[in-house]
């Protein structure tokens, strides 16, 4: 009898038991004595910080997967692991079936990321920064200019300011350019790491509306990390709550809310769920 090969489903993003730890200087509340200070110069005591601890997740094509967590909970580390900027200590991450460590080049071809910090050459204009970024993906300058203009206009960015140096643009405008940089390359996996943090309400709305448009237009996989409960509720098909590097809950908004006890008869909110599970507010360290 022939063995029947079990077909594994290919997810847009498949994370299995991923762990990442860092060694960092030991934090202590006690004021060190003189001889301890001298000792620390030569031999700093280190502690292991598990930034991401045995995380697994699957995201299907066309889905927006949200990761909710406080500052320092491990959201950005997880995004960096997926985007090939960190190597996992354990576990496996694959993007459309390709491993992020062994098939890194293939993964990078279909993926892009927007981070909370819009990193650019600040003395160059948006146009110069975008053309540079597009060239790295083999996109010619003329096409890059045309596409970036389209994307920026949809984001409510005045195209006349595309030749202004980035350092003269507001944070919201810089973040819109960062989104344009990621979308220029038409990624199949889009990693949005707190894309709306620090934006004014109008810019935030523009960006959120644009994310919804992308979802409708193309079958991309989107991972969105956020602090913003309303944003997560509005955009995400599925949400995971991360605390101290571990996923402590996962499900749709409805499933998460249903898992929390109602507050004095009124139904729980996503924020209630978050506080109940983590024991802290979203902005707390």
């Amino acid at each position, binding site marked *: 009898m022939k063995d029947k090969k079990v077909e594994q489903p290919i997810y847009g993003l498949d994370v299995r038991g991923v762990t990442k730890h*860092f*060694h960092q200087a030991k934090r202590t509340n006690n004021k060190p004595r003189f001889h301890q200070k001298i000792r620390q110069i030569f031999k700093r005591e280190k502690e292991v910080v598990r930034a991401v601890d045995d995380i697994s997740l699957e995201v299907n094509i066309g889905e927006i997967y949200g990761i909710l967590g406080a500052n320092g909970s491990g959201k*950005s*580390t997880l995004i*960096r692991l997926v*985007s*090939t*900027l*960190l*190597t996992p200590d354990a576990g496996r991450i694959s993007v459309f079936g390709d491993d992020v460590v062994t098939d890194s*080049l*293939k993964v*990078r*071809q279909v*993926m*892009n*990321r927007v*981070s*909370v*910090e819009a*990193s*650019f*050459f*600040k*003395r*160059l204009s948006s146009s*110069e920064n975008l*053309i*540079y*970024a597009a*060239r*790295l*993906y*083999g996109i010619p300058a003329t096409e890059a200019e045309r596409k970036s203009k389209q994307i920026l206009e949809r984001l409510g960015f005045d195209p006349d300011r595309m030749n202004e*140096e980035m350092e003269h643009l507001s944070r919201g405008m810089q973040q819109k350019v960062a989104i344009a*940089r990621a979308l220029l390359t038409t990624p199949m996996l889009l990693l949005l*790491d707190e894309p709306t943090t620090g934006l004014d309400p109008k810019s935030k709305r523009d960006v959120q509306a644009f994310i919804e448009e992308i979802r409708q237009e193309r079958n991309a996989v989107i991972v969105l990390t956020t602090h913003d409960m309303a944003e997560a509720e509005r955009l995400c098909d599925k949400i995971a709550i991360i605390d101290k590097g571990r996923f402590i809950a996962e499900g749709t908004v409805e499933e998460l809310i249903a898992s929390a006890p109602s507050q004095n008869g009124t139904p729980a909110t996503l924020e209630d769920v978050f506080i109940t599970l983590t024991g802290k507010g979203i902005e707390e360290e």
Partner: protein
Amino acid sequence: MLNLIRETIVSYAFIERNFNLLKRYLSWEILFFSYSIVNALTIGLIMVGRGSSEDVLYLVIGALIWGFFSIMMREVSDAITWERWEGTIEYTFMAPIYRVTHLVGSCLFAILYGLLRTALVLAIMPLFFGEHIDLGNANWLTMSAIVLVSSLSFIGIGLMAAIFPLLSPEKGQAATGIIQSGLLLVSGIYYEIEVLPVWLQPISKISPATYTLKSIRAAVLDNASIESQMGNLLLLLVIGVLLIPFGFWVFHLGEKYAKRVGRLKRSG
């Protein structure tokens, strides 16, 4: 083949970006250019009134060639420092390009920029030194061949030096300077290597700058032909061919380490 063409086109992104940055910092570039002139003048003037025109030219060649190679090494590691400061290195490392493409692009810019700046300084030198700078006897073909071949070695060294800013944007650039000053000491830039302490002289034998300087001085001062410098040319070629892959390998190790311990991020 298609891949090679694509990667060559992509490497142009780094050249274009760096020239764009250069335009934005033009006033600083003028300042650095003035420094290069002052540096060459200060060194050349040591011999004016003390030695022959040949002695003056000997020092000026040292200053110019050293300036050229310093620019090349520094530009490669500067490109990494800059990307680390701005935080764009994460985006460059996420792009679907080979690291070779990334670094070759930075190196090509470094060569073009170094040549441009050195040529401008050289063009200005006769204004200050008059008859002491007589390039009428120079063999330009030999000079060009030596500069071209020796650039390979300095790119290799630049690639190795670039891991310092990759790991630490704050202190890495200074570490690159340490490598430069080590080469400056042992390579006979301003003096013959025979004046070095005996124990240091073997190190000068493995420095590509030693052979570069010897051959360029021979080409400028004695109109030496390419054939007469073939030994040094071959030696420089061998050093370059060894140093470039070694430089890439060292950089690759640095990148692997940075990805393991999380050194690529600027914040967040």
